[in-house]
């Protein structure tokens, strides 16, 4: 398949089941809601070493938030429910509770309930109080700038992590420009996050390593400087840079949509802007049961 001079490889991205949740952070203004959201989703690019993958889903207007203030919706994904709950609570406690004027609310009403403010309330040292409003429990924790308001729980649901595609370009600036265009469009899709810095990862990995202690290592088949030295390069001589976009989402369909708009944005730049191919992280079925066939998505 070729779109606007860009070859879409006959391959697929492999993704795996995760547990996901969403939280809504509000603050006095969008600036401080975003600061709290960035802190809470920091150091959360990959479950390989961060314990979870997290990102900002979108900015919320005051009429979209529970307390009528500007807000930001964030999503966190982890390999299991226990790990997700731990990450959520730790991050909420260290990054949102501490952030001036912030409040924290559930972003998913259904699913298995996991603690959001339920245990953070003990920071109140006995002065905390709860309010049940419209059937939901909120904790009011006295803090130095007033009160930190946090919903007791949020919902944990089954999710999908690790959807991805690779952008293969003639140069590094062209690869990055294409990825930026893709991320711009993908951010408009609900229920997904792109957890890597700016949504883009330049150090895509393969499963395993020559070093026994490492579970993942550089994806040498897509490293342009190794074209002549690795046994299994997947790059033609004209490709000088490869970048990857990883997507976590609540459902396979959400990731499908995000990949479609992302790949389309890349293809819109086309071969004339140095974009040569779109490929995907395919680990031969070792990684997960969700397969995103690029040509089917773009059909």
């Amino acid at each position, binding site marked *: 398949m070729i779109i606007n001079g860009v070859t879409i490889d006959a391959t697929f991205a492999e993704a795996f089941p995760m547990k996901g949740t969403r939280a809504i952070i509000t603050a006095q203004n969008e600036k401080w809601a975003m600061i709290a959201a960035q802190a809470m989703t920091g150091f959360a690019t990959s479950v390989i070493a961060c314990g979870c993958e997290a990102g900002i889903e979108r900015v919320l207007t005051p009429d979209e938030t529970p307390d009528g203030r500007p807000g930001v919706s964030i999503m966190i994904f982890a390999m299991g429910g226990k790990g997700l709950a731990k990450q959520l609570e730790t991050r909420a406690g260290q990054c949102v509770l501490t952030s001036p004027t912030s*409040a924290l609310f559930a972003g998913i009403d259904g699913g298995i309930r996991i603690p959001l403010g339920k245990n953070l309330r003990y920071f109140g040292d006995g002065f905390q109080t709860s309010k049940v409003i419209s059937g939901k429990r909120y904790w009011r924790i006295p803090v130095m700038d007033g009160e930190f308001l946090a919903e007791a729980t949020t919902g944990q649901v089954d999710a999908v992590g690790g959807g991805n595609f690779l952008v293969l370009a003639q140069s590094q600036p062209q690869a990055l420009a294409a990825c930026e265009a893709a991320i711009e469009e993908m951010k408009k899709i609900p229920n997904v996050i792109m957890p890597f810095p700016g949504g883009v990862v330049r150090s895509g990995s393969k499963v395993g390593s020559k070093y026994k202690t490492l579970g993942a290592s550089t994806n040498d088949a897509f490293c342009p400087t190794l074209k002549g030295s690795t046994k299994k390069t997947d790059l033609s001589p004209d490709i000088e840079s490869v970048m990857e976009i990883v997507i976590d989402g609540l459902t396979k369909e959400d990731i499908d949509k995000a990949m479609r708009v992302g790949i389309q944005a890349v293809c819109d730049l086309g071969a004339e802007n140095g974009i040569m191919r779109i490929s995907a992280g395919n680990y031969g079925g070792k990684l997960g049961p969700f397969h995103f066939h690029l040509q089917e998505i773009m059909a």
Partner: protein
Amino acid sequence: MSALTFTLKNRPDQRVDMSPLACHLLADLEPVQIATIELQCGKRKLCVDELFSISGFDTQKIIIQNSFSKLDYIGKDLNGGEIHVEGDVGAYCGISMQSGLIKISGNTGIYAGCEMKKGQLEISGDAGDFLGGALPGNKNGMKGGVILVKGNAGDRVGDHLRRGTILIEGNAGDYCGSRMIAGTIAVMGNTGKHIGYAMRRGTLLLWNQPSLSASFNDCGQHTLAFLPMLFKSFTHLNSSFANNAIAFNRVHRFAGDMSEIGHGEILVKI
């Protein structure tokens, strides 16, 4: 299907126990069967059709017409459905209600909504003493749901209130929120003496400065984030509380009752 309507024929001299006429107890019964249900009236038992003329079929929507202040226990233990009362009601209206809706066009006697667990009780007139309270000797009053009073309420509103919301558009009597364990009482009018007497936790939200006892401590003026959410939860009500214009988030906070554990609060609109 038209609402099942009970129209009182004559006002009996004795009080009437109306508890058998709750929606969940009448489900699947035909009007003929309902007519034979016995109601305690003083020391006598009277069949429903001796007191009321009956029309309509929908047992999940009951209308009681010509009601007066001796019809007690209306909607006792109500578990789903609606009861609309035209006129006043006696004592214990909505006692231990579990879910559903009761609307009273007139006034209620004592213990309206006492120990109710869920649902909504709407009183267009005035409410008697111990609104949403606990029966004498019991330790927990209302445990959930919403009570809305468009008129005034008597003494001891929310005595031993455990959870839930009591909204009063008019005035509240003495000892409002006495012995509260938790929950919320909002009063748009004035409040009587000894407000929050021995309250442990919970919120008394007031539009007018009350006369406070020495066991309430001034915590200063604050903007509280939960208040807009609380007001937003009232928007579905047929009440002044649903009016966005009355919402506020700036309050003067008083903590108490310090003669108890002191985790309760009286919030007064600034």
